[in-house]
């Protein structure tokens, strides 16, 4: 829906009859205008990607060393226990994050679509986390989740002395707190996507369903939700892409800990490329992240641009 929101004009638009006497410049002005950006993109996106991939196949340790070693570093990377943990965590994290954020986003969108009072205010509140960096809100999250200071101690003060809320400091639970914070930050956005989509649905279908006496639940399940397919797809792509890139979230909340419990490929990359003397390993892990993203995004972009052309 990102790109298909706007139906493009027919392809013939630019091919109108041109007046005589156009100069070369006039005929080529469009691509010339784009040229500077194109050059920047070629260097800073594709050039740098190639360079990093090359470094991942080099012997670089402390500083880049351009001796080619083939896939040696990639093999080493995949043999590392910590990389295994990071990849595992990514699956766990993105799986939960996508499902929960989508579910909450959809629920909120449906609820907000019920002619709610103060809808604007509620929407504002649900969306504001998107405006703030996690470096900012992480300070509060860390505190709220800390068993000695936050919710757990609050519950103890209220008399629930047995209450436990110590996920942040438990090796097997900490990743869930990262999910919780990520959902908090992004679910409002997903709500917005669904809400826009809900409001774009053709009203007449629903009205006739209501006439037929179908229950609301059935109408949502059978008629409305199936029509949200493109919104689900968009939400999925966005959330998956966000989860692979998540970085400051983890840095601010757990810094990868306890131990390596909340390590993600993004934090792994940072640690190896910058803190330890393993630039090639860091580059290899960044390359893996790029491949993962490309595997999702390239088909997505392709299908989006194709469907625009067809319409």
């Amino acid at each position, binding site marked *: 829906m990102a790109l298909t929101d706007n139906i493009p004009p027919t392809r013939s638009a630019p091919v109108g009859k041109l007046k005589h006497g156009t100069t070369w410049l006039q005929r080529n002005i*469009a691509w010339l205008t784009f040229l500077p950006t194109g050059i920047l993109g070629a260097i800073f996106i594709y050039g740098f990607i190639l360079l990093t991939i090359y470094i991942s196949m080099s012997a670089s340790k402390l500083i880049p060393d351009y001796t080619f070693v083939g896939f040696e570093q990639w093999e080493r990377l995949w043999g590392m226990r910590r990389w295994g943990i990071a990849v595992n965590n990514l699956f766990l994290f993105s799986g939960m994050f996508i499902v929960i954020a989508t579910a909450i986003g959809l629920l909120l969108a449906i609820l907000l679509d019920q002619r709610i009072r103060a809808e604007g205010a*509620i929407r504002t509140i649900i969306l504001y986390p998107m405006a703030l960096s996690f470096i*900012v809100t992480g300070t509060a999250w860390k*505190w709220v989740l800390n068993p000695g200071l936050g919710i757990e101690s609050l519950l103890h003060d209220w008399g629930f002395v047995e209450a436990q809320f110590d996920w942040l400091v438990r090796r097997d639970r900490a990743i869930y707190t990262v999910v919780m914070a990520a959902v908090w930050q992004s679910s409002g956005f997903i709500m917005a996507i669904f809400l826009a989509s809900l409001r774009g649905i053709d009203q007449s279908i629903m009205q006739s369903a209501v006439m037929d006496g179908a229950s609301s639940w059935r109408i949502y399940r059978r008629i409305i939700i199936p029509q949200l397919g493109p919104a689900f797809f968009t939400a999925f792509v966005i959330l998956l892409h966000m989860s692979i890139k998540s970085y400051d979230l983890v840095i601010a909340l757990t810094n990868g800990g306890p131990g390596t419990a909340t390590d993600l490929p993004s934090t792994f990359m940072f640690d190896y490329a910058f803190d330890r003397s393993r630039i090639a390993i860091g580059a290899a892990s960044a390359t893996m992240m790029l491949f993962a993203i490309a595997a999702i995004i390239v088909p997505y972009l392709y299908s989006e641009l194709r469907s625009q052309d067809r319409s």
Partner: protein
Amino acid sequence: MSDMVLGKQSGRDKLFRGLVYVILGVFVLFYLTPLYVMVVTSVKSLDEILSGSLLAFPKTLDFYGWDEAWNNACVGTECRGMAPFMINSLIAASLATVIPTAVGALNGYALSLWRFKGSDLLFGMLLFGAFIPFQIVLLPMASFLGWIGWSSSLTGLTFTYIVYGLPFTTLYFRNFYVSFPPDLVKAARIDGIGFFRFFWRVALPSSVPIMIVSVIWQFTNTWNDFLFASTMTKLESATVMVALNNFVQVANGVKRYNVDMAAAIIAGLPTIAVYLIAGRYFLRGLMAGAVKG
């Protein structure tokens, strides 16, 4: 708004609507809690924080935290408060908002209304740049900035933001202009109205909404960036996110939660303000982009 309202036709209407409000209320609390904790903690005294409850309303307002954060916050032996870092962020975010927005408008215009051979492919390739994990460009970018003499400077950081902001702004404007009535463009071209004149006279004046979207997007993203800022700045060029991260990690003695929280709020104020003032466009920006970095 849809005419279909849950429970509308049933007798359980009131109960149902009540439930809707209760669920929404719970979520509203969930979303507001961190902000609430930050605000009340920032105006409590340290004693009250350590003795009292996390959610309790402050007994007395104490602005020590704000004063300390703004005037005296330290990184190492430098205690300059937050102002210099806010200025850095403001400079970087402003330039990285204005320039990519201007360039993006032209790009989007050229790629949509003046399509040329391969323009869709080029657009797709540029768009891919919006999705890449930026970790992959960190080291090459550092080398490049060093090579042209912008290492660890605000100039270099701003340049980085500009370059990686272009895919987003181009996307916005391209998707906006693509829905222009084709006849209008055709007519203009037949009349011999040139590329820039049409852009200046027709396209640009009509694109204020998407311009606002682009501005909000670039501003908040640049302001909130941590990955580039934490690796490409030094003390004089550090942005407020980097400074904040340093402040809250330094605990000389007992951790001063009120100072930390006040510093965090100060660092978040500009984007919150932008969000509140232009919230409607903010939402539209997220939607139009639908490609969050």
